[in-house]
């Protein structure tokens, strides 16, 4: 499997790409926080937040619709929020009697539902923008600078590094199973459910052992190359004037958005 199947980073030179990763993490979290604090129904504020996002997309030189195209990952989950439309906390707008159920969409419910949708839609786009403009190792380094415990960042660095290796291992195991359970079209293949579950369990166990033994070898190799419990990077990541400027402008815009959201 190719590396880029997982990695969404886009190799470009842009003002956003060149920002310190710390700044991008802070702005992303602040943006999502700002969306969460905005009251339901403050549509102008949400529109401004979207504008901010579009400016980010534009500055990152990845195309205005880039994050939008990838933002559909949240759709399956919106199903959960549908029942919010029928929240009993507001005035019912209409009452549909469908025989077996009575549906009564309420004003509060509708506002809440669309508020949830817009919030998650905006937030996920900002997260996409962050990943699309920051290499993952830089991101990990940023978290280290932001005082995330060393042990966690190291685990995440290893996870990222071996994700692809072990995914390939899993793919090989899956391919082996498929190759050994050939079937004719229309004929039921494979054994009982119990048998299939057992096979899958053996595959997971097998993958576990291969991973475990590989980690032994990796550790020995790393020790022999001078590993001291810390992964180093070439990039020093120092905050420049541009970084402070972008941070200031972004925080100011978010405060402005809050102001628009709360003043009626």
């Amino acid at each position, binding site marked *: *499997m190719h590396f880029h199947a*997982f*990695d969404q980073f886009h190799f470009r030179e842009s003002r956003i790409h060149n920002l310190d990763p710390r700044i991008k993490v802070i702005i992303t*979290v602040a943006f999502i926080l700002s*969306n969460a604090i905005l009251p339901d129904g403050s549509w102008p504020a949400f529109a401004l937040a979207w504008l901010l996002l579009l400016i980010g997309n534009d500055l990152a030189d990845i195309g205005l619709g880039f994050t939008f195209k990838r933002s559909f*990952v949240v759709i*399956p*989950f919106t199903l*959960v*929020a549908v*029942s*919010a439309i*029928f929240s*009993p*906390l507001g005035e019912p707008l209409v009452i549909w009697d469908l025989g077996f*159920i*009575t*549906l009564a969409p309420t004003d*509060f419910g509708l*506002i*809440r539902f669309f508020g949830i949708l817009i*919030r998650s*839609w*905006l937030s*996920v786009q900002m*997260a*996409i923008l962050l*990943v699309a403009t920051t290499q993952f190792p830089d*991101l990990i380094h940023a978290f280290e600078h932001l005082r995330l415990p060393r*042990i*966690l960042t*190291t*685990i*995440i*660095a*290893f*996870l*990222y590094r*071996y*994700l692809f290796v*072990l*995914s390939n*291992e*899993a*793919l090989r*195991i*899956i391919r082996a199973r498929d190759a050994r359970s050939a079937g004719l079209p229309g004929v039921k293949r494979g054994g009982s459910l*119990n048998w299939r*579950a*057992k096979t*899958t*369990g053996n595959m*997971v*166990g097998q993958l*576990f*052992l291969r*991973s475990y033994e590989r*980690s032994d070898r990796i550790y020995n190799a*790393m020790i022999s190359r001078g590993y001291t*419990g810390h992964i180093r990077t070439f990039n020093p990541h120092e905050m420049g004037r541009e970084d402070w400027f972008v941070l200031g402008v972004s925080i100011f815009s978010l405060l402005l958005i809050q102001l628009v959201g709360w003043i009626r």
Partner: protein
Amino acid sequence: MLYSPVQLHIPDGFLTIVVSLLFWLATVIMVGIAISRTNRTLGEKQIPLMGIMAAFIFAAQMINFPVAGGTSGHFLGGALASIVLGPWAGILVMTAVVGVQALLFQDGGLLVMGANIFNMGILTAVIGFGLYRLVINQKRGVRLTVAGIGSWLATMAAALLTSLQLWLSSTTRLEIVVPAMLGVHALIGIGEAMITVAALSFIERTRPDLLDERQSSPGGGKGWIFAGLAFSLFALLISPYASANPDGLERVAQDLGFLESGQNSPYNLLQDYSIPFFGDTGASTIIAGIVGVVVVFGLLMLVGRNLRASKES
């Protein structure tokens, strides 16, 4: 894309700020304890091991098996990680997994990540390992059975807590989300339980030294038994109650001031339009729950006996 998301990852925007921060707090406390424990007791060798185990959980989630009617059994891995690696290491591994899923795949939000880590990493470790710890010195069949029940319960508890969080954020109706989530995850949990049991038995057969090593490893004290039992009991008691008596829970949440935080428009306290969606949800959920427990028990006994038979032959 080979990576397929699981329904338990809450995206940003679905939880209110109060609920998000509350679960961030709980998660930070638990992960903090986990970090200090592992820092104190484990060598630096364990850190690459945990990283690779996290990658293993990720890769193992790709392996699925057809169940019936086009659905396939999937693997979440929280219970297996905590049983094999020990609870604290399991929590750290699942934290890394959930974090990377959110960062790299946008599967789950950033602000709600605390809740996601709590549901899928901490809760599964507490229940999965806690129940397993209870029988750690028992016979193999008993241990495997309990590991299966533990991972099924952990999945159910995660689904239940996810529903409760969504409801506390007034994102969804309690009487709809609880039966729906629990119904789906009763099935997903069976897949989880079967894979966990089979994987554990495979590891026990091929590398029993790994599990022995872990059993003498620190951080898996008796406190986990109580925590595991308490959380399981809580999950078992509250899910029928939540469906049978949503008003009761609603009252509790109102008294605690949760529901007000989820909304901004004034509302009347006594308005209550009920939607008889699933008939008498209370009774049906309790029955479904009992049937589910019986089915899981039966399946696990069968699997356990088969595994033992195949080992002896």
